[in-house]
């Protein structure tokens, strides 16, 4: 098992500083600010961090308050910013999503509004946390089984290799692909100068976003949340322009659908039906 509830402290009150919550869980994750960067590196992405935060709410996932969780996460991101810690884009995109979720949960639903309800989004998040945790548990159970070469052993002096193959040769698909890839790579690399890894572009962010909204296939207006968390205020105008261009690109690729009610209205995005398993759903396309 990983982090259990044992060291996790009392339920959180909303006015409590979220950082305290986070760093007081001593095991494996440091207890003071200096180790902040290391601590973040210890998380396997934003969902992992959220799972961890959820555990610090003392109650199990059953009774978690998604709103409180979202606030905690956002506060965490803000604090990280204040101490000038660079967070990976995945974390920022999640922040954007949670900020949007928060607004949906707090603001009464408009009649004309056909984005996903805050409750739907909350359920989606809870489901994903639960599913991730279930997979973690499964992994733990798997790794603790009697494993060949550790707990259980094969014949040490095999006398033959039985084969039914007509071919007298053996190779796996992995061997084959590996040979091909490294061959091509070898020759490709000799011909080019190595491209410098650029900072996260908005297109990259969109890619992550696309994954994050995964289970949400309803119209979602994430743009300005995304921009707020992904960019510096000074760059926002150009960022909007390029992000719009990037989203048009994704539309062209058939990955997302895009919609805007009118000038200066929020831009809605959703995962394209074409790119995914079909799902019965009458598209409420109002354009």
């Amino acid at each position, binding site marked *: 098992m990983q982090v259990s509830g044992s060291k996790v402290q009392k339920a959180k009150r909303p006015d409590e500083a979220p950082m305290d919550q986070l760093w007081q869980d001593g095991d494996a994750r440091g207890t003071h600010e200096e180790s902040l960067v290391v601590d973040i590196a210890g998380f*396997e*992405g934003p*969902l*992992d961090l959220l799972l961890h935060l959820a555990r610090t709410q003392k*109650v*199990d*996932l*059953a*009774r*978690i*308050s*998604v709103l409180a969780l979202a606030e905690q996460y956002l506060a965490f991101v803000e604090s990280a910013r204040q101490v000038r810690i660079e967070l990976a884009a*995945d974390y920022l995109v999640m922040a954007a999503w949670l900020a949007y979720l928060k607004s949906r949960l707090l603001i009464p639903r408009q009649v004309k509004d056909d984005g996903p309800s805050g*409750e739907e989004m*909350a*359920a*989606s998040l809870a*489901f*994903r946390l*639960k*599913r*991730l*945790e*279930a*997979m*973690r*548990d*499964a*992994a733990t*159970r*798997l*790794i603790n*089984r*009697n*494993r*060949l*070469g*550790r*707990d*259980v*052993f*094969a*014949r*040490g002096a*095999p*006398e*033959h*290799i*039985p084969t*039914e193959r007509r071919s007298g040769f053996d190779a*796996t*698909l*992995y061997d084959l*692909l590996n040979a091909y890839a490294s061959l091509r790579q070898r020759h490709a690399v000799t011909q080019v100068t190595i491209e410098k890894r650029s900072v996260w572009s908005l297109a990259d962010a969109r890619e992550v976003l696309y*994954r994050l909204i995964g289970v949400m296939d309803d119209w979602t207006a994430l743009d300005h949340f995304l921009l707020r968390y992904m960019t510096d205020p000074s760059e926002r105008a150009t960022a909007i322009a390029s992000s719009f261009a990037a989203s048009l690109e994704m539309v062209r690729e*058939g990955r997302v659908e895009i919609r805007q009610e009118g000038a200066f209205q929020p831009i809605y995005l959703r995962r394209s039906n*074409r*790119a*995914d*398993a079909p799902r019965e759903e009458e598209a409420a396309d109002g354009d």
Partner: protein
Amino acid sequence: MTETSNREEGAADEATVVDPRRLHEAARIAEALVFASANPVSENYIADRLPVGVDVQHVMRELRSLYSGRGVNLVRVDDHWAFRTAPDLSFVIRTDETEVRKLSRAALEVLSIIAYHQPVTRAEIEDIRGVQTSKGTLDVLMEAGWVRFRGRRRTPGRPVTFGTTKDFLDHFGLEELRDLPGLDELKGAGLLSGRIPANFQVPMPLAEDELAEDEDPITQFDLEELGLLTPGGKEDE
């Protein structure tokens, strides 16, 4: 495969009439074949080498029970058979040199997602983990021989899918995928399908349904108080 199954059917009836000498001889052959190999030996391969008219499954079942209490057991892995030391004896056999592949937490997580969700695409793995899979992770699992390309999803874009291998089953002591720990519960809870199950409610204890001592059963009222409405709550849709 089809040929042998015909044969097995026919043989099953005769199994009762096969004389014990023949059966014993068949068992010896099967035993020798499986014993001689470090890797699991396919049932078809064994069947091809048994005297005609002997039911391979019957022979293997007998052998398995013969070895069940011994220091070496006969185990089944995906229609293959192998001899393996009894798990309770690991302490005697393990030496300092004994080591198994160490997996990073990420790799282990990806491995279990592939095992439980297969065939699964890379995008789906990332959807479950909420994070991009680092380049080396799948590579490590494939190199270990536990994960393989399975084929392509018949959806637009035809993404490749991943699945586990026989070596994976063998390594983790699983006879078949159905033996994955907790598989049924996970399925039952809707956690293995891509979509949020229709009856999914935000509040649900994780693995088991019992409440901890300090817990009260959750009510609809609690949820509202928490600012959460379950999607299942709106029943008119």
